[in-house]
Every structure is written in structure tokens, then in C-alpha cells.
């Protein structure tokens, strides 16, 4: 196969994968704390900045680069006392059997044992570990203080990682540190909004425009392949024909 066709196949595959990422963004337009992903195909000639780029070498001269847009989603008031939104950088910490996980999805719950739990059912950690509540009269204050019947029982642990974040999405709104040796530090300049959730930062209109771009680029690659194929056909059937 000619190398130009191979390049176009890579390109179509990339557009297809990008569309998968876009479809996942759109499916999560109502998922609290969700951060949108995107993919780009970077030609090899451009040297991506290793600090911000991820490089997956493709055989035909292009690299895939994925990033997650961690920009703030808007804070939506819900009126539910166990909801908490982060306004600013950082993550809540949730305890799981596999170790600490990080999340911005603050729709917390209380189990029958009174332990405050986060997405996936793991305990949400405070400064002193798990948080046990004794009453139904609970609220979360701006500094992350968990107030149980008028008494501060603990302060939610909110942590930050060096940027760019090296986090993996695990589903259910949870992130895992890609490198477990990197210890998170207490987040600075973040405020907790009790009785509110951070909306998904997916903007539908943006996704629609990107989807059109993906579709038309895909189509253009297909047309180019057809043109090459036509030229090949011409070369194999017409050139050298004795009339």
C-alpha cells in the first residue's frame, strides 16, 4: 500500500478515536465534577512540549496527544446538605481498597454507620481520616468544615497535584495518581460550596462544532483515498495500454 494511503488511514482512525472521546464528553454533560477530554494529532515535525503533551508514536508520522481540560465547571446550587462543590483547584480524597482516589464529584452520602462516603462508596477523608456523623443535621462550610449538629467534626481534605496533572480517570468521577510516589499537597486558593455541585465542564455547542470538524475531516480523508485509488487504477489499467 502506498505510504500516503497509510497516512490517511491513520488520520481516519484518529478522527474516529476523537469522536469516541467527544461522544463520552457529551454523555457526561450532566455528570457533576466531570472534566472534558480531547485528542489531537500532532505531526512529528512539531516537537510537542513534554510538559504538557503526551506522545504516542504512530508509525505513519503523527503522534496522538490527549489532554483533559481541568477548567472550573460552574457551581450549581442544589440545596442538598451533603453536596459540596470545589470552587478553585484541587480534589476531594476518597478512600478505596486500591488506595486514595481523587474526585471533584461532591454528591456525598452517609451510610447507616454514619460514615460520610463519596462517589464509588468509599469514605471521604477529612484531616483526621474518615468522617463519622451522628445526626441528620449536617452542613459543609466554605473552608470544608463538616458541621454535625452545630459542632465541627472535621475538615474535608482537599489536595492538589503538581501541574500538569498526571491523573488517570477510573470512572465514577474518580481519578488515580498515575505515579503513586507523587504525594499530593494541600490545595491552596480553593473554596468549598456546601449545598452545591460543580457542573460538568462540557459545553454542548463546543462539542457540536468539534463533531462537525471531525466528520468533515474524516470525509476529506476518504475522498483523498478515493482519488489516490483512482490514480492507481489509472496507472494499472491505462498506462502502457497498446491502443
Amino acid at each position: 500500500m502506498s505510504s500516503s494511503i497509510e497516512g490517511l488511514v491513520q488520520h481516519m482512525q484518529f478522527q474516529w478515536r476523537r469522536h469516541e472521546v467527544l461522544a463520552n464528553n457529551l454523555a457526561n454533560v450532566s455528570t457533576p465534577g466531570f472534566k472534558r477530554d480531547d485528542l489531537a494529532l500532532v505531526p512529528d515535525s512539531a516537537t510537542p512540549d513534554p510538559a504538557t503533551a503526551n506522545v504516542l508514536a504512530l508509525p505513519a508520522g503523527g503522534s496522538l496527544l490527549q489532554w483533559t481540560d481541568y477548567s472550573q465547571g460552574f457551581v450549581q446550587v442544589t440545596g442538598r446538605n451533603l453536596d459540596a462543590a470545589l470552587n478553585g483547584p484541587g480534589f476531594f480524597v476518597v478512600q478505596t481498597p486500591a488506595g486514595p482516589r481523587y474526585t471533584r464529584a461532591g454528591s456525598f452520602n452517609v451510610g447507616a454507620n454514619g460514615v460520610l462516603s463519596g462517589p464509588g462508596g468509599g469514605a471521604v477523608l477529612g484531616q483526621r481520616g474518615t468522617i463519622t456523623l451522628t445526626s441528620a443535621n449536617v452542613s459543609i462550610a466554605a473552608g470544608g468544615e463538616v458541621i454535625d449538629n452545630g459542632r465541627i467534626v472535621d475538615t474535608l481534605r482537599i489536595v492538589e497535584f503538581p501541574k500538569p496533572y498526571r491523573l488517570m480517570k477510573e470512572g465514577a468521577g474518580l481519578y488515580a495518581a498515575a505515579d503513586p510516589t507523587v504525594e499530593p499537597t494541600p490545595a491552596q486558593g480553593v473554596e468549598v460550596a456546601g449545598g452545591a455541585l460543580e457542573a460538568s465542564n462540557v459545553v454542548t455547542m463546543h462539542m457540536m462544532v468539534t463533531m462537525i470538524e471531525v466528520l468533515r475531516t474524516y470525509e476529506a480523508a476518504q475522498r483523498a483515498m478515493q482519488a489516490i485509488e483512482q490514480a492507481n487504477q489509472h496507472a494499472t489499467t491505462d498506462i502502457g495500454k497498446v491502443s
Partner: protein
Amino acid sequence: MIPALYSASSGMQAQQMNLDTIANNLANVNTTGFKKTRVDFQDLLYQTFRAPGLQGTQGTIIPTGIQVGLGARPVATQRIFSQGDFQQTEGPLDLVIEGDGFFQVQRADGSTAYTRAGAFKKDGTGRMVTSDGGVLTPNIVIPQDAKNITIGSDGTVSVTLANSTTASSLGTIQLAQFVNSGGLLSIGKNLFVPTAASGAAVTGTPGQAGFGTLSQGFLELANVKVVDEMVAMITSQRAYEANSKAIQTADEMLSISNSLRRG
């Protein structure tokens, strides 16, 4: 090559459930003591094509991986127990709980259910019952010749009898509380039953630490805000539409690749 289609359809199903919930909230906008619900969504698993933090070719560290998500799913319907507005009714047995707590009601099978709907009535024997005939626990029996039923903010029920000028106490209405009222199971008719997630009921007198107080002659309206639900309905419908466009795009892309081979 199918994930895009399934991600989008999972998004549509999630929005469908969202609309179902909004419709139920709106249907109950005039239901006494009704508490609205909302659907909580989470992102599904991610397919990891390359983990972040790997060593790159020139000794660089790759900060992010390539992960393609597989859509969204509804994980929970959260009932929001915020206080509803009060409506004055002048009914002597209409009660609202101002603050936390539930009335305890005995069901036909003898078990206890819990409600915020305080529209009580008298049955044939003078017992305080709900509109469906569920008996208030601990029960208060109002004598036939009782006048001037007074229910204090601490739940004490007192009446003046026909042949007397002083009020006599009939008992005290007790409230119940749960560590996690979000874990209660709705069984319809404004009733909730405890589950393993809600924990067992803790009873107490109205006005005690943590318990709400009672107000006679009022009912608690549903805490559904019509405007909020309308806005939620619009956003949900548009999100549904956007996901359907993702399916259309995937379909069109498939059609384009299928037409690569002509003839």
C-alpha cells in the same frame, strides 16, 4: 469501532431517566410533604490505551495517557429533604415539621412508615390517622366531645372537653430521625420506609436537640420549584438531543468508511 455509539446511547438513557425524575417532581408539585428527587450521574469506565507517566522515547515523562471513556450512567436518585414552604390551612390536625424529623405511621401490616405529610384526620374511633388511614404512632385518641384541639410546638396534644373549662393533655406526638434520610425507600403515598442504608429510626420529642418543631394549622408544601424543574427539563432535553447527534455523526462516519470501496 462501536464505543462512540454506545457512549452516546448511555448518555441518552441517562437523560431519559433524568426526564422521568423531573416529570415525577412536577407531577407532585401540589403533594403535601413531597420531597423532590434528582438523578446523580457518573462517568463509566475508561479504556486505557496508554497509561500516563510512562517514559517517553527521549527520556521524557509522558504526563497524560490516552483514555477513552465509555459513557455515563445514573448511579442514584437522591431525595432532597430540604424544607418545603408552609401553607396555612387552619385545620386543627394539620401539622408541619419545621426542621428535621418524620411523623411515624403504622401501616396495615403493622410495620412503621415515616412521612412529612402532616395532614392528619380523625377516624371513626377518634384516632389521629393520615389521609390513607395509617395510624399515627404513638397514637393520639381524640374524645368525641373534645373541643379546641391544641398541638404545641413540642408535640403535646391537649383538648378542652365539653364539660370542662381546663385543657387536658392527650399525649405527645413523637418524631423519628435517621442518620441518612437519603437512604430511605419511598413506597408512595408520601411514605418512606427505612433501609440498611438509612439506619434505624431514632425517636424523640419535637424541639429536642436535632428534632424540628411542630406548627399546628399549616401544611408543608412540596419542595419542588417549578422554574428549577423547567430549566432542568430544557437542559436535559437538549443534552438528549446532543447525544443523538453524536450517534448520527458516528453513523455518518461509518457510512463514509463503508463507501471507501466503490463499485
